[in-house]
Each structure stands twice: as structure tokens, then as C-alpha cells.
């Protein structure tokens, strides 16, 4: 997978998380995963289709999701309710929009699906023939993994 696809997502996630959470965000080390990977508990997924195709997953534990939603709403949410879900979806929206703007500026042409939110225990994600690159983002609210699996349309 070409690194050009990844950097915009890393930068956008860093910028948006810093801005909306108001806490320090640290980039962890990138790693590649080609096989099935477990999902932490809450995942917002956005599909890409066009000259490049694939998907981006924003993956975090339910505890982290509630903490992030609480910070963004400036009130303590007790559970992963509809408001928390709408908040995490909006977070995924903002990060993706910023990343895609950069990718469009670099000349890549593709469309996006609206984010879908999935949550549950013991989930896994499998990508056929596309390796996923994982970018961990660490903060005092917990870790978010940006899991990007995209390729050029053959």
C-alpha cells in the first residue's frame, strides 16, 4: 500500500483529535496487518470507491468511545447511547473529510460512504487481498487505531 494514502489520514486524525478533544495526542508506531484483525469494541467504518478503493476503520474500546464522546459534548456520558454514537460518527466524518480533501488535492479521485458505526465484543475485520495499515493515536482518553486498507483500482 502506498504511503501517500496513509499520511493524509494520520495528519487529519492528529489535527481533528487535537482540536476537538483539547488534549495532547501522540502518534504511535505504524504497523501492517495482512490477516484478520480484532476490533476493540467500537468501530466507525468509511468506504472509499473510485480510483482508489477500500475502507478506513476508526477503532477504539467502548470505554474510550464514551470518554471521547463525553469530552466532545462537554458533559459526562454514562453509556454508549445514541448521542455518543452520533458523536463518534461525527468524529469519523470530520477526520475523513479532512483526509479526503488532502487526497483530492494530491489528485486521487474517489467517493466516500457515510460512516457506519459498529459495536460489540469479540469482533474481527478481514480484508481480502488488501493489507491494512494501522496508525495508533494515543491520548489520556484512551487509544484510537486508524486502520486503513486501500488500494488502487486495478
Amino acid at each position, binding site marked *: 500500500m502506498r504511503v501517500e494514502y496513509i499520511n493524509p489520514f494520520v495528519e487529519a486524525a492528529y489535527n481533528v483529535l487535537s*482540536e476537538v478533544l483539547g488534549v495532547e495526542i501522540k502518534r504511535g508506531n505504524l504497523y501492517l496487518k495482512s490477516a484478520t484483525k480484532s476490533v476493540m469494541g467500537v468501530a466507525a467504518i468509511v468506504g472509499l470507491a473510485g480510483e482508489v478503493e477500500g475502507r478506513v476503520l476508526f477503532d477504539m474500546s467502548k470505554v474510550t468511545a464514551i470518554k471521547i*464522546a463525553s469530552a466532545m459534548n462537554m458533559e459526562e456520558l454514562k453509556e454508549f447511547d445514541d*448521542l455518543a454514537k*452520533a458523536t463518534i460518527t*461525527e468524529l469519523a466524518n*470530520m477526520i475523513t473529510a479532512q483526509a479526503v480533501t488532502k487526497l*483530492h488535492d494530491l489528485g486521487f479521485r474517489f467517493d466516500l460512504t457515510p460512516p457506519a458505526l459498529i459495536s460489540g465484543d469479540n469482533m474481527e475485520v478481514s480484508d481480502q487481498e488488501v493489507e491494512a495499515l494501522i496508525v495508533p493515536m494515543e491520548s489520556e482518553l484512551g487509544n484510537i487505531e486508524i486502520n486503513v486498507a486501500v488500494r488502487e483500482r486495478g
Partner: protein
Amino acid sequence: MKTKVDFPTINERPPEGTRPDGSPFRVLIVDDSMFVTKQIGQILTSEGFDVVGTAGDGEEGLEKYKQLFPNVDLVTMDITMPKMDGVTALEKIIQFDKNAKVVMISALGKQDLVKKSLLLGAKNYIVKPLDRKKVLERVVHSLQS
């Protein structure tokens, strides 16, 4: 102690959401995200605006505007929504009331749609992520135009 005389209320300023006579500006929020609706609502009500209605898509937004008219001063309109998008809803609201004041709420990367909205008669736009200063500045400016 005559506190009011001893300490002039230099910090007092009129809230931005009210007219000089004290009556609030009335706002309709159209957005499919519960989070964004709440965020805009909180920012506006804290400045004295009255959120008179909310809608989750363009179709409902248009209906609500017609119901509320003429007792609505401003609409915040998301662009990407199910059923009817914000640009179409804006167009229909302007057809119904050519003096309607609509502020578009946009994700980054939708410059073409924002431009189209401004040509169709939107007063202003705000790019997400939203913050208090940005929202109040654009909303107040649109009400004055």
C-alpha cells in the same frame, strides 16, 4: 454597601442572541447528526438565541420552516443529509421566502456545494469542526446582513 456604584459592571454585555428590545432571535437547526444539533443548540442558547425547531433531514427542515414562518429568523443547514440534501432544502426555502436567512454547515472538502449554496442565496457557511466563536460570528453576521 452600594456595590453597583462601587463596582461598575464593566463585564456586562448584551447577549448576541437577542434584539435591543430583549426578544430572542429564533433559529431552526437542520442536521442529521444529533451531536451537531446539540452542539449548535448549546452554543446558540447560551447566547440567548431561541432554538424554535430542529429537523433531521432537508425535507423535514423545509416543512418546519413553512410551519414556523414568519416566526423564524435564521436556519442552520447541514449539507449532507438523507432524503433531501441541504442545498436542495435551501433552494426550496428561498423559493418559499426569498428573505430567508440560511447558514450552511459543511464538512471540509465541499467547497463546490458551499459555493452553489451561496449563489442560491445562503447568507454564510461554517466548516466543521464547529467552535463557539466561529458559530456565533457567522450567525450574528448573517442576521445583520
